[in-house]
């Protein structure tokens, strides 16, 4: 008998030629609803795998009998501009729009939605802020009380070996030279930007995530819809179920940060990536420590490369001494997500780096008070997509304007938001927008970007990151930087390519050696779960896991079988665990969605590209305070 197999079981069909239990199939077909379990055939001795994914983006509700008769109408409201994401880019765009409106005495309704419970709660960065964009946005930022309290006084760069440190001179002109910059707690800076925006009349709605992009009939973007609330873990509606709200706008700005989930959809919808390389990323993990006063050097910036990573794995560390009253240091570790060894755990690399004598001596006697992680862009110029489309545009780290060797993206993100606002303003306040599509298409934004210092900066450093893809890895890259960047400032006529999709870089586990990580000592290094607790992350427990799998069977069949389950290692929050099945042999994937810190690494690095991160109920996620 040939039976139509629902998509949830197709993966199994490829790997297990056993006959499926016909009754289970018939039940699934009849209900058109995802059953709680699916049974594998005789070969697996009827091992029952509990279903993992129940999100409506994978199992649409219009075919689900549990949703029959549920009111799905949404309340809608109109604004002139809607901005998704309350980070540096989104807030700068909002502020610039309102500044222009004030100057030219025009009315403009700007609404900003942010998934975090408060502005700044999902913000994480080193960070050394280059004040260029801020000086343009608010020349009087000091009088306004912007929290730029720590000017950089010392800049150290080291190559670490297991026991020693080789200092590298920070010559002026090298991209990571920090003269004139400030060490900031970006979360606090973003919070301050939020206050400035509210004062200017921007409507800011933290705790509401943009879950869906809305389209006009002509295919242009109409706005967004916020997340529904009150869906149970199994995907059924709860008593408190309520639909999200639609926010319509003439133009919608998407500033979701690195690897935004709506941006992912928009790339496909409008084919924005046809002329650029696929984006390549890194994961950054960060901690805040209160250290012994005697070790505190406010204004000091330390970066290192080398140990504990091998020369072919891109990455390094940062350690910044803040000057805000107490002896606080912000430190962290970045690992390029194009790494090849599935046994690598960025979290554990970070923890063992802290034991290096040069680092340990600063941290000894100190207390760790915060932890977090986030993916960041490494692609630069080669990976910039088209940033405008009918009805909307992409700003900030979402398209990805980070200057990788400088390790700075905040100033370019802010500038991109400001340029977007300046391109939008005349169109959105015009009597007759003269637009072909219902949602405004404003290609002037992209033109403005190409004429700005963002473009010049990114062009100049475009070859530094790809230069690491050579036999000598890190050292080849450093030599290239020294020769070509320092001398030629990026004027060389060629443009190097990246290695391709990060998710395609992993080698099968059997070709790689497991890495022996030291056990955390509880003083300098710590275990994963206590770190996650420090991020303050939490989600409403009774909701569908927002780490959705296109096919529930692939993790065990592919990720575990071939790559030994790399998601157990690259997730900085312990969301993914392979646990033994309760019945019989075999493993299953357990997703601890509540731990998620919204870093997006899994969506990026999953070798099967089976994980699709979608936004959970608003106000869930980490509760970073000045990270």
């Amino acid at each position: 008998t040939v039976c139509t197999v629902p998509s949830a079981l197709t993966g199994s069909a490829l790997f297990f030629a056993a006959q499926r239990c016909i009754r289970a199939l018939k039940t699934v077909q009849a209900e058109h609803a995802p059953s709680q379990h699916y049974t594998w055939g005789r070969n697996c001795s009827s091992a029952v795998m509990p279903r993992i994914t129940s999100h409506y983006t994978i199992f649409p509700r219009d075919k689900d009998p549990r949703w029959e008769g549920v009111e799905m109408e949404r309340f809608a409201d109109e604004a002139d501009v809607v901005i998704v994401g309350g980070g540096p880019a989104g807030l700068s765009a909002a502020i610039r729009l309102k500044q222009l409106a004030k100057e030219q005495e025009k009315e403009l309704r700007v609404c900003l939605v942010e998934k975090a419970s408060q502005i700044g709660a999902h913000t994480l960065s080193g960070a050394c802020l280059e004040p260029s964009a801020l000086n343009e946005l608010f020349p009087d930022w000091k009088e306004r009380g912007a929290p730029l309290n720590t000017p950089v006084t010392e800049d150290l760069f080291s190559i670490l070996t297991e026991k020693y440190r080789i200092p590298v001179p920070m010559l002026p002109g090298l991209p990571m030279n920090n003269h004139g910059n400030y060490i900031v707690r970006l979360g606090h800076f973003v919070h301050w930007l939020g206050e400035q925006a509210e004062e200017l009349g921007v409507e800011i709605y933290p705790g509401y995530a943009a879950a869906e992009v809305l389209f006009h009939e002509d295919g242009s973007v109409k706005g967004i819809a916020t997340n529904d609330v009150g869906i149970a873990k199994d995907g059924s509606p709860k008593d408190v179920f309520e639909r999200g709200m639609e926010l319509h706008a003439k133009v919608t700005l998407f500033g979701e940060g690195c690897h935004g989930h709506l941006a992912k959809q928009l790339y496909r919808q409008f084919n924005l990536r046809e002329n650029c390389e696929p984006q390549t990323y890194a994961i950054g993990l960060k901690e805040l420590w209160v250290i012994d006063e005697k070790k505190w050097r406010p204004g000091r910036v330390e970066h290192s490369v080398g140990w504990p990573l091998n020369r072919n794995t891109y990455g390094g560390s940062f350690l910044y001494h803040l000057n805000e009253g107490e002896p606080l240091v912000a430190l962290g570790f970045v690992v390029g997500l194009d790494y090849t060894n599935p046994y690598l755990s960025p979290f554990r690399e970070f923890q063992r780096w802290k034991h290096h004598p040069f680092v340990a001596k600063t941290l000894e006697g100190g207390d760790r008070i915060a932890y977090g992680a986030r993916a960041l862009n490494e692609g630069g110029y080669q990976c910039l997509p088209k940033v405008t489309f009918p009805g909307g545009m992409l700003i900030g780290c979402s398209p990805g304007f980070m200057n990788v060797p400088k390790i700075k993206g905040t100033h370019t993100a802010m500038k991109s938001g400001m340029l977007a606002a300046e391109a939008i303003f005349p169109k959105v306040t015009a009597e007759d927008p003269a637009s072909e599509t219902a949602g405004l298409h404003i290609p002037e934004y992209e033109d403005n970007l190409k004429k700005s210092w963002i473009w010049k900066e990114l062009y100049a450093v475009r070859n530094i990151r790809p230069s690491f893809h050579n036999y000598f890895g890190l050292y080849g890259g450093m030599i290239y930087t020294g020769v070509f960047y320092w001398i030629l400032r990026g004027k060389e006529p060629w443009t190097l390519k990246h290695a391709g999709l990060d998710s395609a870089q992993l080698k099968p586990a059997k070709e790689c050696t497991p890495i022996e990580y030291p056990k955390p000592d509880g003083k300098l290094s710590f275990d994963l779960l206590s770190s996650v607790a420090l991020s303050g992350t939490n989600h409403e427990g009774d909701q569908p896991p927002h780490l959705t799998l296109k096919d529930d069977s692939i993790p065990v069949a592919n990720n575990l079988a071939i790559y030994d389950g790399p998601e157990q290692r690259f997730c900085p929050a312990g969301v993914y665990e392979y646990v033994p099945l309760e019945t019989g042999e075999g493993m299953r994937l357990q997703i601890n969605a509540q731990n998620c810190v919204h870093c997006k690494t899994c969506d990026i690095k999953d070798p099967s590209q089976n994980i699709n991160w979608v936004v959970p109920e608003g106000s869930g996620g980490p509760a970073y305070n000045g990270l």
Partner: protein
Amino acid sequence: MSRVLVGVKRVIDYAVKIRVKPDHSGVVTDGVKHSMNPFCEIAVEEAVKLKEKKFIKEVVAVSCGPTQVTETIRTALAMGCDRGIHVEVSGKDYEAMGPLQISKIFAALAKKEEASLVILGKQAIDDDCNQTGQMTAALLDWPQGTFASEVTIDGEKVKVVREIDGGLETIKISMPAVLTADLRLNTPRYATLPNIMKAKKKKIANMKPADLGVDEPPTRLAGVKVETVDDLVAKLKANGTI
């Protein structure tokens, strides 16, 4: 049967790790994620349900504290309360405030607003005092239905099923009364975005404790440690407590 007063408290979110300030004077609150006390959410939900069932006409959300508590009042308004009252107390006064002072404020407001019911959460998750509801009832000389897991209005009386150590206790009390909400009373609704937008138009009145005739909290005296029970008894006798 017109008005219900609901108390809401802004507390540090339960998932956040608490950090003691370096000078040991309290816990770090700056920039830390705060939210409405979970039991207060349940209290608001119950009040709004009573309004939807037409037992009462108006729900007033009250909170005491610095400017930030207006966000908490807005959430209560978004859940269905009609208007808010912000009793402003900030800085050192706020840190020194305890259940007795809050109860005095609520008692004064209950009289002023001619409330038939005062509904509070059973306790706040930051201090776990579990005293405000009871003290408010005592100050007003009103009956109290605390640890309520079920509330039914029956004419001029309220039937309250209370969760107590031994199980469940059902009492019938006359109104006006004070109720405190326990966990299983209801499941609070979400404050959705359209309601938050509407809530921005609802009124929040601003006042100080002095406007209600409530004094500054007395400075808290330091405690004394004693070695034995006999010492304790002697000390209590000496200052006239027993």
